[in-house]
């Protein structure tokens, strides 16, 4: 990713807006952009989802492969999460090897899913010591207008929850839904003009400072946290956004459940 020029004017303007409790697109401080969630949108994937948040658009595809369990974990399969922000997603995403930004994206989303334990790798075992399922989750950004983190995380869990293990194609039994025991949801807060806001768009990310990603599971259990970029925040600031995250994660969890039920 090419590090974009941050116009000082933008930062000053965003600070002025923040002082009046305003955002440049007229949204409220913790208001999100319009969210669209679509599942089963990729014909060749075993589970898939497409998420749109404002003008940010991403895909998640789940594919299964057979693996040999690791010697020290003969009863377990695997989960691999790979995130790519290809140059198609924006002018600032220049071609080349994965940038630190896109690597961080992938790893933060991966931790949110993995650490929640929503996929039990023992369930993925076919023949102990010989055969197990490897679940591969590919996250693919098509348009970056800010907040790829939340878009990726939402697409990821929706794709996993609607995935079908293609046992018949691999002659390992009958097709069955992938067991996903809970629904971890990520909410990201960006410090813009001196205060944290939710669902920052590209302009706010460009002119903003540090960010905090919170992944909560069912019953508000905390599964992963990450603070990114340069900046200092207080315990009070954190408590405020943690509170917001609880209600927003619940809303998004509902959205996922409705999409899955509707299938």
């Amino acid at each position, binding site marked *: 990713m090419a590090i974009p020029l941050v116009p000082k004017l933008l930062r000053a303007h965003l600070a002025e807006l923040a002082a009046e409790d305003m955002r440049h697109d007229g949204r409220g401080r913790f208001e999100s952009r319009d969210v669209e969630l679509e599942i089963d949108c990729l014909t060749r994937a075993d589970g898939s989802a497409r998420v749109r948040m404002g003008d940010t658009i991403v895909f998640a595809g*789940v594919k299964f492969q057979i693996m040999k369990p690791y010697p020290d974990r003969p009863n377990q399969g695997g989960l691999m999460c790979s995130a790519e922000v290809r140059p*198609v997603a924006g002018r600032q995403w220049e071609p080349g090897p994965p940038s630190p930004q896109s690597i961080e994206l992938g790893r933060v989303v991966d931790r949110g899913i993995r650490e929640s334990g929503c996929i039990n790798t023992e369930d993925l075992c076919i023949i102990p010591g010989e055969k197990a399922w490897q679940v591969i989750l590919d996250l693919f950004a098509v348009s970056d207008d800010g907040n790829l983190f939340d878009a990726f995380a939402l697409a990821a869990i929706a794709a996993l929850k609607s995935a079908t293990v293609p046992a018949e194609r691999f002659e390992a039994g009958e097709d069955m839904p992938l067991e996903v025991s809970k629904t971890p949801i990520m909410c990201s807060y960006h410090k813009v003009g001196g205060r944290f806001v939710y669902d920052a768009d590209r302009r706010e990310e460009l002119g903003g400072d540090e960010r905090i990603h919170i992944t909560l599971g069912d019953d508000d259990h905390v599964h992963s946290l990450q603070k990114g970029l340069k900046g200092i925040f207080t315990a009070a600031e954190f408590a405020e956004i943690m509170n917001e995250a609880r209600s927003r994660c619940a809303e998004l969890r509902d959205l996922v459940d409705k999409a899955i039920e509707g299938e």
Partner: protein
Amino acid sequence: MGGYGDVQCIDENGIRLDGRKIDEVRPMSIEVGVVPVADGSARMTWGLNDVIAAVYGPMEAHPRKIQRQDRAVLDVRYNMAPFSTTDRIRPGFNRRSREISKVTAEALESVVLTELYPRSKIRVEIEIICAEAGTRCAGITAASVALAHAGIPMTDLVVSVASGKVHDIVVCDLNKEEDNYGEADLPMGILPNSGELVFLQMDGDLSPDQFQEAWDYNMEAAKVVHKHMVEALKRGEA
């Protein structure tokens, strides 16, 4: 290429596996503006193909070594998403993709007025979201719509389609089984207003008559595809 023997791609009534007659094109749709942050973009579904193309530029050409003093360069990237095929594709460098990127750039450079923007580059990003035979053709076609959507001046759109041969019968617009089990594949890039060519490849075995038949099928199919392209552009932003 080369028969696997058992797959019957055309039945005794001349109907193909997807229900088409031998001279028919697969169903398709084109939509512009699907990547809102791009300068121009288009999405094309063609059979089971699902392709997104986005254009950024003209912009300063970096790295310096690709810059040309007299014109803009087209910096084209053709890529297949990991979940686009039945067997997952590992992300990373791929020779096939590199070759397709190069021939695509050369096809598009033949129509873009690059002399208007010396020392700059125009990025063309082609992503195959779902693949089913003829991805390079769908890619070139979608890219050409995306360039037009981005307001890049071009002397014509580029329409690309591949006909071929299966069970010794020449067919228009190969589908997946025909591409896998057939005996020839002829993808072409055609300028619809003049019938001239900017892209041409061929693999397999075609007699002179069969070659002409496949050529003609491509020319006819190009007219159908071109209509979709122009309609999509006129419909404006999604």
